[in-house]
């Protein structure tokens, strides 16, 4: 028994009775792509969100609609989310800093004062 739905993805998956095993054929389901947005030439591409698309080309099209239409945009990247290698959430403790070592944090350098002083001297 097929479950007629307005969502084409549901129909593609041929979801039947609850409890039936659903087998997803290759190409049947869409992938998630992470989107990176470049505001001007030479600037970094910044992560802005993700889109759901059947292939990289259409991911770019969807990304343009979703993320390229409001603020200035000169280029977009899309990367399949599953191609991103990341640490496990549980490994967060690797990044924990020893309290006595805050001098290692780049954010610890107080330079604004010096910069302002330099500017004034000009």
């Amino acid at each position, binding site marked *: 028994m097929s479950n007629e739905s307005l969502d*084409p993805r549901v129909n593609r998956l041929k979801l039947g009775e609850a409890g039936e095993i659903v087998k997803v054929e290759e190409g049947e389901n869409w992938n998630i792509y992470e989107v990176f947005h470049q505001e001007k030439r030479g600037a970094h591409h910044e992560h802005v969100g993700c889109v759901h698309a059947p292939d990289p080309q259409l991911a770019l099209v*969807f990304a343009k*609609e979703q993320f390229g239409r409001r603020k200035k945009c000169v280029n977009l990247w899309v990367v399949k989310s599953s191609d991103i290698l990341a640490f496990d959430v549980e490994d967060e403790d690797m990044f924990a800093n020893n309290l006595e070592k805050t001098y290692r944090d780049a954010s610890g350098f107080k330079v604004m004062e010096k910069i302002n002083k330099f500017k004034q001297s000009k």
Partner: protein
Amino acid sequence: MSYNAALTDLIIKMADDELIQGHRNSEWTGLGPVMEEDIAFSSMAQDKIGHAWALYRILHENLEGKDPDKFAFHRPEKDFKCSHLVEMPNEEYGFSLMRHFLFDHAEAIRYESLVDSSFEPFRMLSKKVKGELKYHTLHANAWIMQLSQAGEESYQRMQEVLNNTMALAAGIFEASPEYENILVTEKVYPGEAALYQRWLDRIYPILVKASLNLPDIKTITPAYGGRQGIHTPYLQPLLKEMGEVFNLDTEASW
């Protein structure tokens, strides 16, 4: 002067195609298969209507044409010169996409050719719409590739819809018996026959890549008539709906 009459005829043909195609595509708003595609199709529909408006303005400013809004929404059906392709109802998404693919490549080729036009407003318009048309054809190509490779049923439906749409699409290139010569001699544009050939050369490799077979061109009878004001029964209801609000009060200012 027949040069002006010829130019006017060409602009109306191009603009009416854009307006009616834009309106048809806008009918998908809210009904697209997925949200981003819905937005994409709607946004391209707006672009088309923008192209129509730019052309009506050229008529208005350079060739003593009427106010663009009045000309678009307050004109009897027989005065429209759009091709039959753009008048057809949307039916299923496959048809709309195939029409989008065939129409937008024809459109891109036409506007590209205008970069060398002897008519200055055409040269400027050609530059202005270049980026938009690049995106429209990229979008169309991406879907044609995707759907022709999405399994047997999908492939067959794409091939079928291509077979059924080719004659309509060939109707875009209906030359005016009266004006074609003068437009080509005056180097306004390269002429419908040349554009038709360029269009076939442009879509062929994309269709090959999608494993779709281009129907034999010799067996096709292009759907002509639209350029002479003879239309399908689908245009009149569209015009009525499109102009419904405007025609409540044609003098209102928006």
